[in-house]
Every structure is written in structure tokens, then in C-alpha cells.
């Protein structure tokens, strides 16, 4: 058992933050507060979904990833890049996978191993679990780390429903290292670099969920690799394309919603995307309403990873491009040599550790204390204006009431409570002013 909600890649760039309420209101876990005119992220609540990166108009949120310079790190004698399939969906005018992969090598990587290849092995394992093994229904995909972290925090009763398979990135990374070792390199001379569509995968690649250690040495965002790649691709003649594609057409499908659950052997599957929708579906699972469903594919991002927060083009457009990429790729003649890059049995396809709920006991150390705090929160909430204006720095009046009781935030941080206090004070002063001292009441003698 391990607590997965402690590591993060999403962070604030304080100089750019103007302390507005855009991100606090959009964060799906209410993890952000504005304090002293700057947004602050509660690390216990953040799931690295990247929504705040997307919505901040001042670009004050970012995901910590490696810059492309990491490949020039002297430590590494052999560099293998493992691109997420969502990368292929980013180039409007070139839908050849071999163009993308060749360009990646020209950037400075020595070899390529596609995460989509690993995804296909995970699909096979998923089918095996669903059809041959005893498991609770519905099983929920473990592919989107933002969803897994959300579940650890908000859906502790569904931990056993999480599909216990490895993330394709971890499988690909381990296979990539072995591939380089077979070429004669020592493990620590090999650099494995993941090209990521999102902050959640960036975190999970460095600190894998349900595994002891990561085989990933660096994570580069699609956004950072996009322009260099595009520029090389524009200059490449098709005759220069190397045949690097591993023909994992099904695995490429994982990049968009519906792809992971498309295998015809998975009979009753639901594919849901967008965190709000995911939450709604998970609520239904919890209420026992979806017991007849076998598998739920859940992606935090609309359209799936092609719509990830570190991608470049519109997710809906990207989804269409991905379709073309897969069609094009299907016309490349088979090549046996590269399709066997991940030998069976060489990588672990199952999660080693169980994922545990991430309960941080925000409301109290025991039930008694927690109930008392909740009652105090209810009482404060009843006094608030319920218009969720955000001026207090909390996303809504309810969250503010929690902050008052649990974090000792003064209730006067609410401008309405402040005005009420001022009014009360003013009335009290008027009352006081009307009161006459004893020496001035009563009739004056001698009139």
C-alpha cells in the first residue's frame, strides 16, 4: 500500500499569478486557494489533472518537466525515446508515424520504442483479467493517473475495482532499457525519455503508481518537443523516413477516448472523458448502478490524451488526425523485426502494489472530532451569502466555511461578513453615541 497523492508536477509561477479566481473555481478537487494575492495548491488535494494550466489566462501554472536539453546529459551514452501515441495526433499536415519517429531520432535520440506497443500488451492482459479471473465489476482502467488519484481521494470504496495492470509507459520504459542493454550498454548509461501529453503522466512516469521504481529518466512535454519536431519534419523527404513504426495500430487508439476499451473481447464497456463526467460515472458505480458493466475506460481530459493539457492542438481536431495517422500506418507493410521489440515475459504487466486510499483526515483525527468540525462548518456556512463569489480566495462558500473552521481563516475574509460586522459596529457606535452620561441626563437645576 502506498500513498500516491504526495508527488506533483503541477506548480505555480508566482510572478505571473495575479490572484484572480479563474483556477480556484475550475479545479475539480477544490485544491487551490488564493492567499496573499497568489494561488496556492494544497498538495493533499491536487491530482495533477492540469485543468489549472489550461484555464489560467496569465499562464501562471505549469507542469514541471525536463527541457529537451536533458538528452544532452553526459551521463547517458544511449538515449531511447518512448513517445505517447497522442504525439502523433499533433501534426495537421503530416500524418506519417515514421516521419514523427524519424524526426525524434534526428533531435538526438538513439532509438525509439512506442508506448502504443506496450499499450497493446496491456490490452491483452486486461482482457485476460476480465474474462479469466475473479474480479469485482465493473473494473476501472488504471491508465489515466489523474483519474486514479481522484479515486484514491474521492472514491476509496472503489480501490479494488482498479484494473491491476501496469501503465503502458512503465512497460515501455522497462522494455526500452532492456533493449539498450541487449545492445551492450550498462543500465546507468541508458537514458529513457517519455514524451508526455499531460502533467498527470509526467508525475506518474517519474513516480509510478503501484510500482517500486521508475525506468523513466526524463519527461518531456509534447508542447516542448512540438516545434523542433515540426521543423525537422517539414524538411524531411519521405525517402528519408526510417521504418521505426512498431505497427501497434490498436495501441495508438488508446490516445483517444474509446480506444482502450475498443477490443471486441471486452463486452460491456463504458468510455467516459472529462473529469466532471468521470466523477458522475464513478458515483453511479459506487451506488451499485453499473454492476452489469465489465470495464470502464475513464480519461480526465475531454477526447482523451489527445486533449491533454501539455498538447498543442485542439483535442477534437487531434482526435481526427489520430484517426488518419492510424489509417496511414495500417498501410505500411508489416515488418517482423520491429514488432517483436518487447519480448514476452521480459516486462511486468501487473501492478506490484495495491493502490491505497489517500485519506488525509482533513476534518479531524477521529469521528467525534470530525463530526464536531462538520457541524461548525455547517453553522458558518449558514451565515454566508451562498453566492460563491470567490473574493475570499476559496472556490465557494462551502469551501470557505471549511477553511474558517479547519485552517483558522478569519470569517471576515468574506466581504459580506466584513460588511455585516462593520454595520453592526456602526449601529453599536450610534447606540453608544445616543447614550448620555449620567451627568447630562436629568433636568438641569436652575432653569
Amino acid at each position, binding site marked *: 500500500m502506498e500513498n500516491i497523492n504526495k508527488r506533483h508536477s503541477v506548480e505555480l509561477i508566482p510572478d505571473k499569478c495575479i490572484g484572480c479566481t479563474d483556477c480556484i473555481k475550475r479545479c475539480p478537487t477544490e485544491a487551490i486557494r488564493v492567499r496573499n494575492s497568489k494561488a496556492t495548491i494544497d498538495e493533499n488535494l491536487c491530482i495533477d489533472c492540469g485543468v489549472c494550466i489550461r484555464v489560467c489566462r496569465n499562464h501562471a501554472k505549469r507542469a514541471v518537466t525536463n527541457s529537451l536539453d536533458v538528452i544532452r546529459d553526459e551521463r547517458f551514452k544511449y538515449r531511447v525515446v518512448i513517445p505517447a501515441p497522442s504525439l502523433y495526433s499533433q501534426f495537421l499536415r503530416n500524418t506519417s508515424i515514421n516521419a514523427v519517429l524519424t524526426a525524434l531520432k534526428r533531435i538526438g535520440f538513439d532509438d525509439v520504442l512506442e508506448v502504443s506497443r506496450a499499450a497493446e500488451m496491456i490490452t491483452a492482459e486486461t482482457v485476460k483479467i476480465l474474462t479469466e479471473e475473479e474480479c469485482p465489476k465493473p473494473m476501472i482502467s488504471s491508465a489515466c493517473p489523474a483519474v486514479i488519484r481522484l479515486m484514491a481521494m*474521492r472514491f*476509496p*470504496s472503489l*480501490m479494488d475495482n482498479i484494473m491491476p495492470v501496469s501503465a503502458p509507459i512503465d512497460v515501455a520504459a522497462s522494455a526500452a532499457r532492456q533493449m539498450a542493454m541487449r545492445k551492450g550498454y550498462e543500465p546507468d548509461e541508458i537514458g529513457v525519455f517519455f514524451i508526455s501529453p499531460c502533467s498527470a503522466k509526467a508525475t506518474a512516469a517519474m513516480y509510478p503508481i503501484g510500482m517500486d521504481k521508475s525506468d523513466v529518466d526524463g519527461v518531456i512535454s509534447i508542447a516542448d518537443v512540438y516545434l523542433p519536431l515540426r521543423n525537422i519534419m517539414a524538411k524531411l523527404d519521405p525517402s528519408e523516413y526510417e521504418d521505426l513504426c512498431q505497427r501497434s495500430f490498436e495501441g495508438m487508439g488508446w490516445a483517444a477516448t474509446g480506444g482502450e476499451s475498443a477490443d471486441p473481447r471486452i463486452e460491456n464497456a463504458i468510455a467516459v472523458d472529462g473529469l466532471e463526467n468521470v466523477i458522475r460515472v464513478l*458515483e453511479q458505480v*459506487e*451506488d*451499485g*448502478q453499473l454492476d452489469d458493466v465489465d470495464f470502464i475506460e475513464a480519461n480526465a481530459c475531454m477526447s482523451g490524451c489527445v486533449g491533454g493539457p501539455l498538447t498543442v492542438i485542439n483535442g477534437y481536431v487531434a482526435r481526427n488526425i489520430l484517426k488518419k495517422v492510424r489509417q496511414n500506418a495500417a498501410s505500411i507493410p508489416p515488418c517482423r523485426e520491429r514488432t517483436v521489440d518487447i519480448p514476452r515475459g521480459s516486462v511486468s504487466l501487473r501492478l506490484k502494489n495495491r493502490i491505497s*486510499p489517500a*485519506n488525509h*483526515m*482533513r*476534518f*479531524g483525527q477521529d*469521528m*467525534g472530532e*470530525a*463530526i464536531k468540525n*462538520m*457541524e461548525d462548518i*455547517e453553522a458558518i456556512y449558514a451565515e454566508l451569502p451562498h453566492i460563491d463569489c470567490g473574493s475570499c480566495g476559496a472556490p465557494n462558500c462551502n469551501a470557505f466555511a471549511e477553511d474558517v473552521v479547519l485552517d483558522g481563516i478569519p470569517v471576515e475574509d468574506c466581504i459580506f461578513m466584513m460588511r455585516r460586522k462593520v454595520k453592526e459596529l456602526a449601529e453599536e457606535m450610534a447606540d453608544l453615541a445616543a447614550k448620555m452620561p449620567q451627568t447630562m441626563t436629568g433636568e438641569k437645576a436652575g432653569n
Partner: protein
Amino acid sequence: MKLSYTVLEGEYARAGEASSAVKKVLKQLAVPANVIRKIAVAMFEAEINMVIHANGGVIDVDILPDKVFIQLVDTGPGIPDIEKAKQEGFSTASDEARDLGFGAGMGIPNMMKNSDFFNIKSEVGKGTTVEIAVNL
């Protein structure tokens, strides 16, 4: 602590909101996951019944350190034969409710299975009261 919810007549799309809110509170109180799951299933089924079989009603929830007590009161048509209603698969749900995925006749059996105390009182023409308690 006490919580109270009004369930509106015919609001199929919003049915389940009260159980959702209770689940949220229980999670914040760090109630064990398996207990939350029991309460969620039992309360959801009872809440849905208020919408599809009666005309809405009132739900009162009392969260105590050792148990959660839920009372659901409606003034709907009532249940003529409670023993029959408790049987698995028995349902008088309308086509409308069935089209929305309700009406499998497993609601009351699931409430009984997922509670430590269960009581249902009903009078035809007057209404139905369901009481559910789950130990923590």
C-alpha cells in the same frame, strides 16, 4: 450531525443527489470505504423509490459516532403488500422508470442486504416510511 433533504416529484435526472451529498460527508468524516459503499447503495435505492414510486418526500440523516441512521418519508400511494415488495425481482415500476434503468425489483432487497437495521412501514393512500441504519 443531522442532515435533511427534500426529494422532488418526478425529478428523475436529479434522483440520487441526496445520497451523493451524504456520501461526500461520510468520506470527509473518513468513514471506512466498505461502510460508505453500503450506505450509498441502500440510501440510493430508497431515494430512487421515492421518485419512481411515490411523489418525492423528505430524507433525514443522522450521523452518530457509531452509526448512520436514515429516515425517508413520502406521502405517495403506499405499498399494499410489503412482504411481496421485499422479494427479489418484484416490481411495479412504470415503463418510463424502466427505460431509465430503474425497476429491476432489487431495490428493497439491496437495502436489506446493505443495512444493519431496516424497517419499512406503509399505508395505502397515505405513504411509506423507510428506516435504514448502518453501523460504523
